[in-house]
């Protein structure tokens, strides 16, 4: 991506958060560089929303160091606010407004932040086309479908042309078609507007499609950090071999599938049937990773992270 630079936009070190006695984040570390699309992936309740709300400046952290666009979000200024865009999980506001009215009204707050290079707010007509809500732009918001509402939320998030956009579970409740359209929109934003994007999801497939880099959050820590390919390569080295001999089925996990199959055929020859070799996918790794954390089995996981590097 052309816009990618080494400038660090989000810097998080040893971020901790507890609600009463319950610790949700137990030392989260990561960086996001300008122009990156980074996906925070994890099961429900892993602390994704908590993390993103701390970065947005909507929640006070318990401890740790956080810098977003060069400022601590807890003590950020209104000018800082103008550089960020926020799309939250559940909005049900402004039912009597139309999308066009609301975007015009909310966009107006960015007028003082317009520069000769970056015109703010974004032209509302263009924005409506961009997020694909042209057909309902003049309907009351209360009559919009869930998917249309979500796209309106995204439009509100980007109307001020933010340098950094936060998306919390942006496609929750989308049908497959709406989801694909939304993914295209995120790509457009990253490519055309050079927006840095941090989004949360519990959908691995979505993370794989959208993100330059995936951060897996489980048990209050970032347990894996890398591109989808990197994670799949580093973590999922094992393959699964299935076969049957005279009607009896066997399964074996191995790191050298080719060698194992060669030996297997040499031993049983023509008796081997239904042979199947499957490389463990990122999904298998993710599920076992998350499952391990949820059942409290940390030793195996720490082993996996060590492998993941």
């Amino acid at each position: 991506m052309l816009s990618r630079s080494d400038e660090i936009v989000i810097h998080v070190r040893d971020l901790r958060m507890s609600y009463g006695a319950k610790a949700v984040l137990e030392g989260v570390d990561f960086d996001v560089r300008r122009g990156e699309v980074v996906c925070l992936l994890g099961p429900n309740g892993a602390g994704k929303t908590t993390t993103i709300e701390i970065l947005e400046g909507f929640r006070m952290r318990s401890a740790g160091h956080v810098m977003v666009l060069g400022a601590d979000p807890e003590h950020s200024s209104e000018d800082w606010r103008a550089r960020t865009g926020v799309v939250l999980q559940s909005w049900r506001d402004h039912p009597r407004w139309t999308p066009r009215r609301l975007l015009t009204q909310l966009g107006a707050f960015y007028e003082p932040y317009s520069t000769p290079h970056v015109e703010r707010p974004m032209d509302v007509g263009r924005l409506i086309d961009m997020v694909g809500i042209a057909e309902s732009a003049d309907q009351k918001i209360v009559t919009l479908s869930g998917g249309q509402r979500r796209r309106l939320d995204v439009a509100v998030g980007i109307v001020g042309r933010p340098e950094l956009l936060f998306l919390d579970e942006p496609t929750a409740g989308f049908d497959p078609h709406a989801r694909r359209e939304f993914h295209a929109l995120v790509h457009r934003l990253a490519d055309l507007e050079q927006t840095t994007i941090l989004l949360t999801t519990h959908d691995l497939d979505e993370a794989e499609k959208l993100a330059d880099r995936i951060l897996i959050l489980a048990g209050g820590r970032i347990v894996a950090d890398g591109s989808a390919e990197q994670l799949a390569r580093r973590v999922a080295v094992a393959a699964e071999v299935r076969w049957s001999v005279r009607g009896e089925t066997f399964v074996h996990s191995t790191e050298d599938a080719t060698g194992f199959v060669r030996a297997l055929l040499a031993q049983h020859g023509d008796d081997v049937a239904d042979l199947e070799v499957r490389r463990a996918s990122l999904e298998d790794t993710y599920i076992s990773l998350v499952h391990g954390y949820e059942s409290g089995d940390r030793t195996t996981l720490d082993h996996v992270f060590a492998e993941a590097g």
Partner: protein
Amino acid sequence: MASRSHAIRIGLRGGWIEFVQSCRSAQDQGFYLFTGLLILGYLVIRRDDRVEGTDLLVPSVSLPSILGGLLVFGVIVGPAYGLAMAREDGTLLRFKALPHGLRGYFTSQLTLNSLGIVPQFLLILVPSFFLFDDIMAGGASGWLTIIWVIVLGTLATMPLGIIIGAVVPSMQKVGTWGMLPVLVLIGISGIFYPIQQLWGWVQVIAQIFPLYWIGLGMRSAFLPDSAAALELGGSWRTTETVLVLGVWTAIGLVVAPIVLRRMSRRQSGSQVEAARQAALQWVH
């Protein structure tokens, strides 16, 4: 500074848009009509009755008091509900995410709620002039008094509504925390019957709060000077009215922003999500 005044201008526009939307909404029209007809109906039934021991007609005395009560109810309960709802449906967070957004939001709510009493007042006042005799004894100076009582009364009480809306745990609690105390205060503030009929200590409580004084100010605007004899101390006590309402305004202008800042600092998306889940529970 420029972006602050800019946000206030946007807020004024937003408040006006919401006011127009409210005037067009069947739900709001229904509410205005219902309360309007209820009040006019009561006044029509008693249109020829006179207040005991005087030659004043009941509608002449009741109308200003009722308008005072409506004003207080509107500018306390309206913003309390509005703000409690904004905390739950995400409106507040929407504005928090904008530069100077909360400044704009509160400007729009003050605009909306100040304008909100206009249709209700017109709906009751205009028919009253046709239906009843001796409504406005004060003439031009009476109208002037109405205006300053409305403005000062709004300033004195709207911060209370905003504070209630900022501290209630949920929208369903606005009834218990907001509406109930306001109705009790309206009950003891001489709006529906003379305050002298109540115990001395209740009269003291009523006179601490702004509601009694707003009703008194409204009566001083509509009624002839001779009617002041019916009031406590036999006078309209205009100086005291300005003083009490002024003190409440000052308190509100100091306390409300502090409470609002505290409340909006605590606002987060998870709270909105929790409220959504709770609302779904209510539906099921």
